[in-house]
């Protein structure tokens, strides 16, 4: 071992001691996640407040961890939750089973379920690891009505909105 090389190494480590630390003081300072980060799921709404989810359970079928449970019920024009025939009356995700792969997002025909950026999930028992629909659905946007809505007949017959190709 060359003593000069040891001195050079010591100089290197001493220099790095005066660099600003790279540590984020986590609970106080949060590092922003990447744009495409796959965190906790959210169930989206249309601008008028209707839920995007139509209860088709394709997400549950696509889920490799079998973490999603969907139960559908019928919409009527008097009591309307989402466009089309059906809506999800029960929507549960077991956050202990979920592997955050995002397949549900890919499977969704209406872009209702999106993996958003929240990664701070904690629970003290298994029961509370199951997030019900009330926790997953986003609040009603401004100008929208809360569900269930009473809508004029024949206005929301299509389950799947007309989608455009990404520009």
């Amino acid at each position: 071992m060359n003593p000069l090389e040891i001195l050079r190494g010591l100089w290197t480590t001493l220099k790095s001691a005066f660099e600003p630390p790279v540590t984020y003081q986590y609970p106080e300072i949060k590092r922003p996640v990447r744009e495409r980060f796959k965190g906790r799921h959210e169930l989206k709404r249309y601008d008028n407040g209707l839920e995007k989810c139509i209860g088709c359970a394709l997400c549950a079928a696509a889920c490799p961890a079998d973490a999603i449970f969907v139960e559908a019920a019928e919409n009527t024009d008097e009591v309307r939750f989402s466009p089309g025939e059906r809506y999800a009356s029960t929507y549960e995700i077991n956050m202990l089973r979920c592997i955050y792969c995002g397949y549900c997002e890919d499977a969704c025909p209406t872009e209702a379920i999106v993996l958003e950026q929240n990664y701070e999930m904690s629970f003290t028992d298994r029961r509370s690891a199951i997030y019900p629909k009330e926790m997953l659905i986003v609040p009603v946007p401004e100008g929208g009505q809360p569900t269930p809505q009473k809508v004029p007949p024949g206005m929301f017959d299509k389950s799947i909105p007309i989608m455009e190709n990404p520009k």
Partner: protein
Amino acid sequence: MTLALLIEWAIKSVVIFLIIVAGFAYLTYFERRVLARIQVRIGPNRAGPWGLLQPVADGIKLIFNEELIPAKADRVLFILAPVITVLPALIILAVVPLGPNLTFFGKEYSLGLASNVNVGVLYILAVASIAVYGIVIAGWASANKYALMGGIRSSAQMVSYELALGLSVIGPILLANSMSIDAIVSDQRGLWYIVLQPVGFLIFFIASIAEVNRSPFDMPEAEQELTAGYHVEYSGMKFALFFMAEYGKMIAVAFIGATLFLGGYQGPFVEVVPWLGPIYLFIKVLFILFLMVWLRATLPRFRYDRLMAFGWKILLPVALINVLVTAVLIVVFGG
């Protein structure tokens, strides 16, 4: 022997114990903070202001850890080993003067339990060697091959480097013409021995790192090869005792290095204001401890055979030549 003398000794002993025990706790904090800064991190800063209560939290956690004794372990030796390891670290400071003599109520007191003992250096070497027994016994009593390997390695390493360590302290002994640490320190009033004995200090520093089993010579506890070496089966307070022994010995060798080579408590104005003595000593000790932590942050672990080769083929001959040259120069120039 009067009662006053007994009380004086008792107080001094408690202070020396406290230096090692409290020093051990805060040395871990110091090391973690310095290592973190060198690795461009922050280090523990959550428990208490600036993380100053972190050692307390660690201590409480270790006390509540489960004390596990392996079924095939030799129970008596298994419990005895950490005690044997930690004792030398606690008593080694007895011969180191912490400052110049102070006068209270018209009576002069020396800052040090037995710093005027005329074989002080010998005492240090003798006591420091006892710790290896604890480590070997720990390795053997654990009935675990990793622990046994660690114990064997550490005995080989400590025996090899003790030679160089012993030879390196001959320099100050020759210069002061005494084995009493008091005499060695007061002889450094004008010039620190590190100036006269630069090679000696270097050898002392390297050998003492090997002696306290610290990186880059932490062969006995090489994580990658031996999981944790001799203390792999220890948990709870027994593990804490090994930990304390390692850090206590670090503090002890830093004190000894500062005393033998860096002038001990000597410094400017120490004759006028004697209270500066302990502060100077503390700064010097902190400097040596920083060097140790800095080295740990820089160098990877030596390979075992290279460690032995370095000890026997380089360090020992250099130390011998150093002693020879020092002795000849003292005879020629009259000391």
